[in-house]
């Protein structure tokens, strides 16, 4: 048994595997299969100040080795999270990452302030949701706006702050540096790539939102590249995500420079994916004489 513990941005994770925001609800839905406490952490569903209804359906479209989604941050609002979901998760011996996704800088600041007074272990600031009219990717595709919102949220909380970055940019490295400069404790990447599918029978987009976020194995090589670039450009830790579906993918992502990893789409295909990845990491470490998973972080040697 290798040691899978990771200290990420000052937070102790028993292992580096984290279901991504929006993929795992608040940790209740898969308890029928295995206890959520097996996982290192959970990034909960993106939370807004008030209840949000999300986009009209269809909200999902299948693609080659991937999927598009346009949920649009449907959630019960931060009060429901703090009163109902967080207390439940705090009984589970798991790092709780509160994902906040306000439509304005002020809303994000308010959300951070409210979370700051809670038991949540970490805040993930989502500045890259491709499926909302206000906020979302609008914050995350320009350095100045990414910096401004990070500054505002930073001022409202002393909790470890992770900023979730959009891959739909010319230089994700520049955005990462901008949020690092404003005091972000970590960055998580990549959020989804903006995509579209059309039903050629009806000549209508499959998603009612016309476009949506691409995730799944299809985007994995783009995610590995961006994680590698960012991990080599900033000094804060990186949480890597984007298309991870097995232990080998997770190890590859960590070798690229990720200290922790998130997965989403893979869980819809295989609900056991998170635990299989944890077991697979353990097995791989043992077979390769790796005592601590931290040994492989950023271990890739470029040519």
């Amino acid at each position: 048994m290798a040691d899978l513990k990771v200290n990420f941005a000052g937070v102790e994770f028993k292992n580096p595997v984290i279901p991504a925001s929006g993929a795992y609800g608040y940790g209740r839905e898969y308890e029928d299969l295995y206890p959520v406490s097996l996982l290192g952490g959970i990034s909960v569903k993106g939370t807004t100040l008030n209840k949000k209804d999300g986009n009209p359906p269809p909200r999902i479209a299948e693609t080659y080795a991937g999927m598009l989604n346009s949920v649009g941050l449907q959630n019960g609002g931060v009060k429901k999270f703090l009163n109902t979901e967080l207390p439940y998760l705090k009984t589970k011996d798991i790092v709780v990452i509160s994902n906040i996704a306000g439509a304005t800088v002020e809303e994000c600041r308010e959300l951070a302030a409210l979370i700051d007074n809670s038991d949540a272990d970490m805040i993930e600031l989502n500045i890259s949701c491709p499926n909302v009219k206000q906020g979302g990717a609008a914050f995350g595709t320009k350095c100045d706006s990414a910096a401004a919102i990070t500054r505002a949220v930073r001022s409202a909380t002393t909790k470890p702050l992770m900023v979730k970055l959009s891959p739909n940019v010319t230089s994700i490295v520049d955005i990462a540096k901008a949020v690092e400069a404003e005091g972000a404790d970590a960055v998580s990447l990549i959020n989804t790539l903006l995509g579209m599918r059309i039903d050629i029978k009806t000549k209508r987009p499959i998603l009612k939102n016309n476009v949506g976020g691409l995730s799944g194995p299809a985007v994995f090589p783009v995610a590995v590249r961006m994680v590698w670039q960012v991990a080599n450009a900033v000094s804060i830790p990186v949480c890597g995500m984007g298309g991870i579906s097995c232990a080998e993918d997770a190890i590859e992502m960590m070798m690229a420079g990720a200290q922790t990893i998130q997965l989403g789409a893979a869980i819809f295909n295989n609900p056991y994916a998170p635990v299989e990845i944890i077991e697979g990491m353990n097995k791989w470490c043992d077979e390769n004489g790796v005592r601590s998973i931290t040994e492989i972080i950023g271990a890739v040697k470029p040519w």
Partner: protein
Amino acid sequence: MYKHGKYPVTEKKAVAKGIFDFTISCKEVAEIAQCGQFVHVAAEGFMLRRPISICDIDKEKGTIRIVFEVRGKGTEKISDIKKGDLIDMIAPLGKGFKILEKGKKAVCIGGGIGTPPMVAVAKEYGENATVISGFRSASAVILQEDFKAQGNNTILCTDDGTAGMKGFVTTALEECLDKEKPDIIYACGPSAMLKAVVDIAKKNGVYCQVSLEERMGCGVGACLVCACKVVKDGEEFYAHVCKDGPVFSAEEVVF
């Protein structure tokens, strides 16, 4: 409570063009399955699972039946599963139909591939159930023998009149209700049909449950993609077919 596993397909039949009938041996699933629930089936090489309604449940034999239509490459892949092979499914999922106490009368309405879930629910009512099912034409008709075998009264409609009466299930339903009002109406099929059925049920003051469909992701209520607009206490919001449904009370659904 649901399970995830790979279970042997013990029987496989093609019941109509592009429509397959699988019997799956899955004791742990059959034990807890309720009519109206669905199974979420993996299609090898495809990212997303396909939700398929449970057609019938045999708790003694520990089997369930699914009857599904090949609509694309994913369901085609599932239809390639051979007798004896394993099918990867998460099941049983969702909320099923409400079953009234013995002696109550039900009308079950199935439109096309919406017909299969009516088998298990109609079985609960035996001769107290009237099953109205509608299809494009004779070549698409399925499951009539199953309904008769379990004692249901059956009314068959086809759009082109090549089998049963020519016309829509709604016409048949209205004639039915003129004769006698049932205690409950169950319906599954195209949303236009469901809307019409719900209106008729309301007009006649009969409680009605409908089974809805939407493009689905996780199937267990985590990803929130399979949204459907419902109304409760005058407030409209998006519920989710996989967890809050697929069965909803007619008055909740906003068509």
